């Protein structure tokens, strides 16, 4: 229910800049996912927003009001921690009730509010337990209940699903969006799991070394990752990467791959001679019969099922590895020689030296003219 704005927020620990001039804006009732590898500064950024860590520079604004100097207890936020951070000497009930106690709510209202949120999160039966007697899933729900109970306009969630098992994580991923959207809460959600980021985020900000390297919708980031690193982090199985040297013939640019010439439509001729990396997601590669024009010959090595998908490891004629993903219960080649095509418009071309994306979508469709 609130708008959050960060302006060139910076935090240094000794000489390390862990949060480096971050500018971000989250609209009312939106969910922003902070995604990044560990040590990227996500948690510190969240603490800066919460007000428990002081920034070295920059401001935190809530509804256009500068909150940088306001103490954590007066910011009115809710936060759930990765390690739950339950108060070990208080029962689950008291844990959840702590924001209401601070607000000096009367006894009956307090009981009702805690009861409501406990019912919502299905932990009514463990309210009298101490944290050490709770399972990880119950701890996580208690921590979440504590963050939600005060109905804060802004909710900070620091990788809340990190320390729960796969089944629970899946369950919560289904429950969380409705839980959050129903309340019109503005949410900042930290995660290292790209699927969680894609499932929960209205926007995703990718943080690397304390800097926002890309900010956009989940689709944006998946389809047009700003650099090779993001392309690698987003996607499972990981994106195929081929080191290539584009060759220009007039306006046409192409690269050599597995013995054939792969045209890159839309690529600048000036790229010729620049060492590049061609990224192709495994799900955009598919097996085709031999006689399809322009198909790429590969040698199938092995396959394995992963989450309703079958991943095939193949090798190009040059011996480079290529992963191909296809839906489960569909047929593919057993082993030996096969042919693949790449979905039109799915190639991503990165500069090898810097890793930055050169062309959002490079058309790798093999046209008849070339074939």
């Amino acid at each position, binding site marked *: 229910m609130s708008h959050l704005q960060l302006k060139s927020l910076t935090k240094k620990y000794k000489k390390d800049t862990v949060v480096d001039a971050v500018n971000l804006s989250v609209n009312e009732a939106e969910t922003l996912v902070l995604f990044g590898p560990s040590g990227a500064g996500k948690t510190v950024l969240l*603490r800066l927003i*919460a*007000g*428990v860590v002081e920034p070295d520079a920059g401001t935190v604004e809530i509804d256009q009001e500068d909150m940088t100097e306001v*103490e*954590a*207890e*007066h*910011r*009115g*936020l*809710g*936060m759930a*921690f990765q*390690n739950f*951070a*339950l*108060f*070990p*000497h208080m029962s689950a009930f008291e844990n959840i009730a*702590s*924001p209401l106690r*601070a*607000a000096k709510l009367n006894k009956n209202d307090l009981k009702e509010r805690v009861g409501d949120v406990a019912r919502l999160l299905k932990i009514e039966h463990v309210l009298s337990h101490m944290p050490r007697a709770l399972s990880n899933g119950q701890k996580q729900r208690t921590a979440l209940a*504590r963050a939600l109970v*005060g109905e804060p306009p802004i909710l900070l969630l620091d990788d809340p699903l990190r320390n729960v098992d796969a089944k629970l994580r899946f369950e919560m991923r289904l429950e969380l969006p409705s839980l959050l959207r129903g309340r019109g809460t503005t949410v900042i959600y930290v995660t290292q799991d790209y699927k969680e980021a894609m499932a929960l985020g209205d926007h995703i900000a990718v943080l690397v070394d304390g800097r926002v390297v890309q900010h956009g919708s989940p689709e944006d980031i998946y389809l047009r990752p700003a650099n090779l690193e993001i392309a690698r982090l987003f996607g499972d199985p990981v994106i195929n990467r081929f080191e290539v040297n584009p060759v220009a013939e007039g306006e046409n640019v192409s690269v050599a791959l597995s013995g054939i010439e792969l045209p890159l439509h839309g690529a600048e001729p000036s790229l010729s001679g620049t060492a590049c990396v061609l990224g192709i997601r495994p799900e955009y590669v598919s097996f085709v019969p031999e006689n399809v024009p322009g198909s790429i010959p590969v040698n199938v090595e092995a396959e394995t099922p992963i989450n309703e998908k079958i991943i095939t490891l193949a090798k190009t004629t040059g011996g480079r590895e290529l992963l191909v993903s296809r839906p489960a219960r569909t047929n593919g080649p057993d082993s030996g020689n096969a042919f693949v095509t790449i979905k039109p418009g799915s190639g991503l071309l990165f500069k090898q030296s810097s890793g930055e994306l050169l062309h959002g979508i490079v058309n790798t469709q093999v046209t008849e003219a070339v074939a």
Partner: protein
Amino acid sequence: MEHSSILEKVLRGIALCLVITFFMFPILWIVLMSFQTNETILRVPPSFIFEPTLANYKAMFTGKLETSAASLEIHFLRNLGNSVLLSVGAVSLSLLLGVPAAYAFARHKFKGSEDIAFTLLSFRFAPPLLVLLPLSLYFQKIGLADTYIGLIWVYQLICLPLILWIVRGYFEDISPDIEYAYRIAGHSWFSTFRKIALPLAGPGIAAAGLLAFIFAWNNFIFALVLASADKQPVTVGALAFVTASGIQYGQIAAAVVMSIAPTLALALYAQKYLVEGLSLGAVKG
């Protein structure tokens, strides 16, 4: 360990007995001495067989020491009272000062904070005599010599560093996230300190307080130099039994038994905390 033979078990048992005897024998001997007269104590060779007497303990309570030469007044109960007052006072004061300081050192790393903490600890390295001479001069000038307040103040040299370093380790063990969570829930830092940090460090504070109490109780040199007869604790008071007409071993033994009884009882009662407190202080220090 499961495959040890009977011989190994027996040998281990003997070794254990030897060690225990070695450490416990002085205590046993002093307890035995406290029930004997000077004559039986000084018998050669010494013997475990004697006629027990309560005269020594009686002398402690009546305050009258009958020797072969004369009758002497002693103030043992007053000494005991002084010990209690000085130790409890010193530990209370150092808890009051040391626990908030420990919290500050644990949570707020500022420039030079390590140095300050270390300087406080280094008071424990210095031999007491180093500070005693200047202290006794100062104390006479400012009128603190031979006062309870002055003594309790000096006892801080013993208690404060101990409490500071042990409790600091306990505070550092509390995840900052837990305190952050309480802050974000809407509580002030002071209420976070009271409702989260203090209860969670409770066992550590108890252990540190207990250790400090034992050290304060056993202190000898500060009180010997800085206190006159009516303010001396038991450790110094026992010296009164070294009389002109000879050393009253029986009474000294009774005094020692009575003076170690409270600390021994406390230590046994809180053994678990003590070991935790000691080892944590060692690891974290």
